[in-house]
């Protein structure tokens, strides 16, 4: 079988696995976020924590819960990192420096998992499994909660700005969805070869008499939630290219499947929550079309292998593993940047110029196709609102989405949402390349040097976490700058989403009329895809031209 045929069939296998499971999981997610019943174990937790899971929170209260929980997360993780040398299983590693601990605390709380450090050389097992991996679960659950609140708000009518209960959403997301799937996936990963123990590195005498240190760690359990929760922070420096994290082509497929699963299923759940499956199907179609386009372009580019180094070598294998090859690496790269995962099974800095450009473009889209768990859905719905607004302007009618009027206050919130990450990216890159401290981190010169810095601020502002890792990011300058990008890139959009959710929940649902733009037909799918591409295109073309585009043409 030719490499191209195998590449296509590999994608088909993945799509088939997703197609079979997204429906049932979507139904389960919809039930999870709308059912009035609590599980016994959940009730126990609420009693212990003295939380009222049935309080229907006003959007402002919901937001304050989100921010309060996340603030506690940043502080606890910061303290954990600064104190790790005093804790068990530290493997003798010292405290993280204060700028590094800040960066990591923000990074994992915001579902970004940008890593300035090298896991096997800086972090002990306890910090990884009880600090970082816990945030992998809960930061994912926070994103899903906000998306669920927004979907419920669209389904409500005259509810006075009430959008549901954050604590119940948080606990249910973890208990009913993330934990059970992770548990099964972790055991499957061990079966395929991922390690799972609490050992320090063992010195081994190799076949030719040299000494090699074989590392241990609770890797499989972290790997599972790292993909499922679109987090992406590797246990080891080499992330999912490390054989102990991603041992076989089959584990590779499992990991790609996991990192796409919930984001697609959330779109299906959305349709169920707003009581119109066709609406969910339309959103899912846009996600699918954009994702597959990125996969196709990246796969084509890596298999074709343009560039001086791939030409000299006879293939784009620098920074790729033999067991994955170009195709399975491209599929991973396109999927990890189209979600907010940022795990990597190849070194993105060594991707071909067009391939690296596609990865960057995927993140610049705002990670909506299918995006991070939860954040992908609300990001796509914001663009859906932009789309109905634009169409409304064309025909001169007040735009509406799912029976909710898009008036001036609503569209202002959406505009703020759409502008937040581009503003962070463009301000971030301007700051990054204006200071000596910023430029000092670049490994490459010329356009690829700009691409390294651009990739970093794009990845941080969109909460992705992958890197063109030639950039030396572990300096106070980059740690602070990227920390700020991650923090605002995560929580400012949530403010606008929840404010909008409050307005929608308060509105009465308008009946459909002859003038309503149908938002479930192929025409709308096309329009929404177009809007997504145009919004990003207009914002980022100038800087993309100076980086990956000029590289590709060189």
């Amino acid at each position, binding site marked *: 079988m030719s*490499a191209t045929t*195998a590449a296509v*069939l*590999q994608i088909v*296998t993945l799509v088939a696995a997703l197609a079979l499971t997204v429906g049932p999981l979507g139904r389960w997610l919809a039930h999870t976020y709308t059912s009035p019943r609590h599980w016994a174990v959940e009730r126990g937790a609420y009693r212990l*924590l003295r939380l009222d899971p049935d309080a229907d929170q006003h959007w*402002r209260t919901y937001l*304050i*819960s989100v*921010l*309060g929980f996340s603030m*506690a997360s940043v502080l606890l993780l910061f303290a954990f990192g600064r104190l790790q040398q005093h804790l068990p299983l530290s493997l003798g590693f010292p405290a993280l420096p204060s700028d590094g601990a800040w960066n990591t605390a923000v990074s994992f709380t915001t579902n970004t998992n940008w890593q300035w450090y090298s896991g096997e050389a800086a972090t002990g097992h306890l910090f990884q*499994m*009880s*600090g970082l991996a*816990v945030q992998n*679960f*809960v930061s994912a659950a926070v994103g899903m909660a906000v998306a669920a609140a927004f979907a419920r708000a669209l389904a409500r009518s005259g509810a006075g700005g009430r959008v549901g209960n954050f604590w119940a959403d948080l606990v249910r997301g973890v208990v009913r969805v993330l934990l059970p799937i992770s*548990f099964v996936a972790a055991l499957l990963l061990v*079966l395929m*070869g991922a*390690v799972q123990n609490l*050992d320090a*590195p*063992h*010195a*081994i005498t*190799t*076949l030719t008499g040299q000494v*090699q*240190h*074989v*590392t241990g760690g609770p890797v499989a*359990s972290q790997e599972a939630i790292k993909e499922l929760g679109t987090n992406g922070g590797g246990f*080891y*420096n*080499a992330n999912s*290219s490390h*054989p*102990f994290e991603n041992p076989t*082509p*089959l584990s590779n497929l499992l990991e790609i499947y996991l990192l796409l699963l919930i984001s697609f299923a959330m779109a299906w759940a959305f349709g169920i929550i707003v009581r119109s499956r066709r609406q969910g199907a339309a959103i899912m179609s846009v996600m699918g079309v954009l994702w597959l386009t990125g996969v196709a372009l990246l796969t084509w580019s890596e298999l074709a292998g343009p*560039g*001086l*180094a791939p030409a*000299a070598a*006879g293939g784009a*294998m620098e*920074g790729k*593993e*033999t*067991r*994955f090859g170009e195709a399975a690496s491209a599929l991973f790269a396109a999927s990890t940047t189209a979600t907010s995962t940022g795990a990597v099974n*190849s*070194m993105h*800095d060594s991707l071909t*110029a067009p391939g690296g450009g596609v990865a960057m473009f995927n993140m610049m889209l705002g990670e909506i196709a299918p995006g991070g768990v939860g954040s992908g859905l609300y990001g796509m719905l914001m663009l859906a609102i932009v789309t109905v607004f634009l169409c409304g302007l064309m025909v001169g009618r007040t735009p509406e989405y799912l029976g909710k009027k898009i008036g001036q206050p609503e569209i202002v919130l959406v505009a703020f949402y759409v502008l937040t990450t581009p503003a962070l990216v463009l301000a971030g890159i301007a700051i990054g390349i204006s200071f000596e401290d910023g430029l000092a981190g670049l*490994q490459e010169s010329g356009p690829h040097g700009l691409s390294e810095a651009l990739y970093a601020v794009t990845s941080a502002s969109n909460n992705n976490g992958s890197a063109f890792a*030639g950039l030396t990011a572990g300096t106070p300058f980059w740690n602070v700058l990227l920390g700020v990008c991650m923090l605002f890139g995560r929580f400012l959009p949530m403010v606008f989403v929840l404010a909008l959710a409050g307005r929608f929940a308060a509105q009465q649902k308008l009946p459909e009329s002859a003038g309503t733009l149908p938002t479930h037909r192929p025409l709308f799918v096309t329009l929404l895809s177009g809007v997504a591409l145009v919004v990003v295109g207009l914002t980022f073309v100038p800087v993309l031209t100076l980086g990956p585009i000029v*590289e590709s043409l060189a």
Partner: protein
Amino acid sequence: MKDLFQLARHSVAGLLTLLLFTAVLGLGYPLAVTGIAAVSMPWRANGSLVTAEGDHTTNPSDAVGSQIIGQAADGTLFLPRPSAAGEGWDPLSSYGSNLGPDNEDLVATIKQRKAEIAQREGVDPADVPADAVTASASGLDPDISPAYAALQVPRVARANGLSEKRVRGLVADHIDGRTLGVLGEPRVNVLMLNVAVRDAARLG
């Protein structure tokens, strides 16, 4: 002001929630997975270690390496890909080169590797496959392409007093095809192949 007070209150609730989550997700979950893995899949959970005879072991002092972690070899054996992990093959420093696709140093290094390998194996530089001259992503790639293995057969056969046919047979036995016919790429596990070569040389 009222909002700030409320934020503080919710942060405290958040902190308590987080502590409970830390116990369940940060200790209960990974330890449960560790426990189940230790009982049902001890060899995998402990890093897929193998002895010089190729047998599975969980004791690091009996092992010559992990089946799924690449290691350096010498000129008598099949050689792995270039490694950018630390000084080479260092699991305490896993990584790729991260050099860009048009990086001049990388291009020069690739050309140099190609010339060296061509000379070492006595073949035309154009016949040296891409994986032989590029550093992997992890620096710990346990595999090489079947093409790179085939290239090394004459040298390894000579060095171990084996016939080329015999060594070619060993390579064929160690080729893993694409999983399910479509996933990943065909590959040869270097450590397991070298163990087999040593075995064959010992038994004659």
